């Protein structure tokens, strides 16, 4: 297996009182080792749910109904691990969580326990995954806090989360996520709750650590700026589907899908002044219980073709350039790619 993680045809549904929500539909994703996959989309597009499915930490009513998530084996010898077949609470899955795949969340205050010191929380992870003694785990925790740039790490290790600022808390969360050398770090909106100057610090930190530790990353965010600056490959999601996928240059400089084009046009860009009106995507995100037929984007799409886009199955994924795929009826056929 060449990639670190391969997701094929992933379907996640939520069975709620009000009906069934198809949160993720037929998602394919590859994450090669040591690179960054950016996943971008608006609320409800399924980006976080895809990540949670990879760790088997879906909310109680969420179920993986189809598809596979394969994780490359640790030493390259055994067969790939099929994550969808593991029991969410089982020993194997618990070894993967934190050991192979770690996740950091948007709001650091909610991913830290308020009644334990940050040191104890980091040590817990070290002791669970690496059979270390208390003293060894403590040394490791101090070392990790230094690595993520927490000043006075020997003292801060005994601090409770409420004693730390938002930026320092997020650094502690990153230390916790990385203390067992995972091969993949999933960062779900890691800087959305932070101030601009602190966001820049954390993005630089994540970038540096990724290089130093040689891990792969999945960067989930709605912020196109963060994606442009951190990702190698980008997947654009809309209503549970990937609508466009390609290298970061392709997505930002040669976008093909009308949704990607709309998103890029609607971000205010610094230095453009106040004369221009922003282009915006008309309409709003549809009700999750009643997704549109055909292409999920057709009710808001300026290129919608009657009786093509609004009926039948969603458009198939087509290759439009080397390593650049789009699911849109404007591109009905694969372009032949000469390699």
């Amino acid at each position, binding site marked *: 297996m060449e990639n670190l993680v391969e997701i094929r045809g992933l379907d996640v549904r939520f069975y709620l009182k009000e009906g069934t929500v198809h949160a993720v539909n037929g998602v394919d994703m590859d994450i090669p080792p040591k690179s960054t996959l950016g996943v971008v989309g608006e609320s409800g597009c399924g980006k976080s749910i895809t990540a949670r499915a990879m760790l088997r930490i879906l909310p109680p009513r969420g179920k993986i109904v189809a598809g596979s998530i394969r994780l490359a084996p640790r030493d390259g010898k055994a067969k790939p691990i099929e994550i969808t077949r593991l029991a969410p609470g089982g020993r194997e899955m618990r070894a993967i969580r934190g050991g192979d795949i770690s996740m950091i969340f948007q709001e650091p205050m909610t991913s830290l326990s308020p009644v334990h010191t940050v040191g104890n929380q980091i040590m817990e992870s070290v002791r669970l995954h690496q059979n270390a003694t208390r003293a060894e785990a403590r040394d490791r925790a101090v070392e990790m806090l230094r690595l993520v740039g927490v000043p006075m790490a020997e003292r801060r290790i005994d601090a409770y989360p409420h004693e730390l600022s938002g930026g320092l808390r997020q650094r502690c969360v990153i230390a916790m996520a990385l203390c067992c050398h995972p091969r993949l770090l999933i960062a779900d909106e890691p800087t959305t709750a932070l101030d601009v100057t602190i966001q*820049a610090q954390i993005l630089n930190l994540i970038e540096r650590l990724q290089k130093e530790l040689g891990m792969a990353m999945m960067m989930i965010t709605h912020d196109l700026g963060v994606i442009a600056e951190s990702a190698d490959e980008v997947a654009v999601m809309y209503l549970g589907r990937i609508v466009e996928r390609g290298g970061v240059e392709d997505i930002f400089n040669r976008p093909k899908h009308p949704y990607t084009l709309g998103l890029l046009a609607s971000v205010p*860009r610094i230095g453009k002044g106040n004369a221009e009106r922003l282009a915006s995507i008309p309409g709003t995100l549809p009700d999750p219980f009643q997704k549109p037929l055909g292409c999920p984007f057709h009710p808001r799409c300026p290129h919608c073709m009657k009786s093509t886009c609004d009926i039948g199955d969603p458009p198939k994924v087509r290759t439009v350039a080397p390593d650049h795929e789009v699911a849109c009826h404007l591109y009905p056929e694969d372009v032949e790619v000469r390699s």
Partner: protein
Amino acid sequence: MSAELLKIEGLTKFFPITTGLFRRAAGRIKAVDNVSFEIAEGETLGLVGESGCGKTTTGRLILRLIERTAGEMLFNLDEQEIDLAALRGDELRRFRKHMQLIFQDPFSSLNPRMTVLDIIAEPLRAHNYGTRAEIEDRVRWLTDAVGLQVEYLRRYPHAFSGGQRQRICIARALALNPKLVICDEPVSALDVSVQAQILNLLKDLQKELGLTYLFIAHDLSVVENISARVAVMYAGRIVEMAATAELFHHPRHPYTEALMNALPKPVPGARAERIVLPGEVADPSNLPPGCAFHPRCRYAQDRCRQETPELRSVGEAHVCACHRAEELTLRGV
């Protein structure tokens, strides 16, 4: 340029930190410290800064939602200068229709038990706008103006998306024909595609109704898009203020420079230019001596550690509070 609608002079708010049983004052948080600015009628002034810099407190002081410690706030209503701080009781209540507020979170600022009609009509009823029919007419007009379908008036807020809810909030804020609308982070809780719709709507309404905005936000690109002038706040003070293009292209304060260049841009390969400030945002209860920004400033000198810089003119309609504003060449966008 038309007349000033609002003139703020030396506005200051200190919150006491109290401790113990007898609420002994143990210190004070300098939330807003000697802030002065003017907003012309029909203009948008953007107020940017990071959390805790006092931008929201400034908005609330103007609206008299909290009381100021010192300073003057003058509101120009039909050629009459009104001292906002002197308004009392019923006088204040009646004056409130001229100043309205739009909040950040459209999920917590709408009462879930009221229909959209009642939400938008509430300020009209509170100020005895007219008969039932007149109020309903006005609500219909407002709903249409903010781009909502009139058929939705009998529904409750839960049936709407974030963008639609923010439209309801805007309709409610505009119900009484206010002169000044204070927009406190009105688009930061919205998705990118919807954010653009709301920004455009706010601009259209301003043109149509001649509104004046104080636009408070942390996102510089959003502020640039809507404001004619921008004021940058740090630790309770305005550190720089200028016309939008001037501020973005020729910043004079190192904090402004860093804010603009720390922002991730939707352009691949731009990351080499990122300026990263060390340390944390200054704590307003324990400000460093001298310039509050000096511990994070890469241009700081001895003088910056001792003397607090005052806001002074550094160009045409451009003020900046930095000792070294004239000698530094800073990078704009």
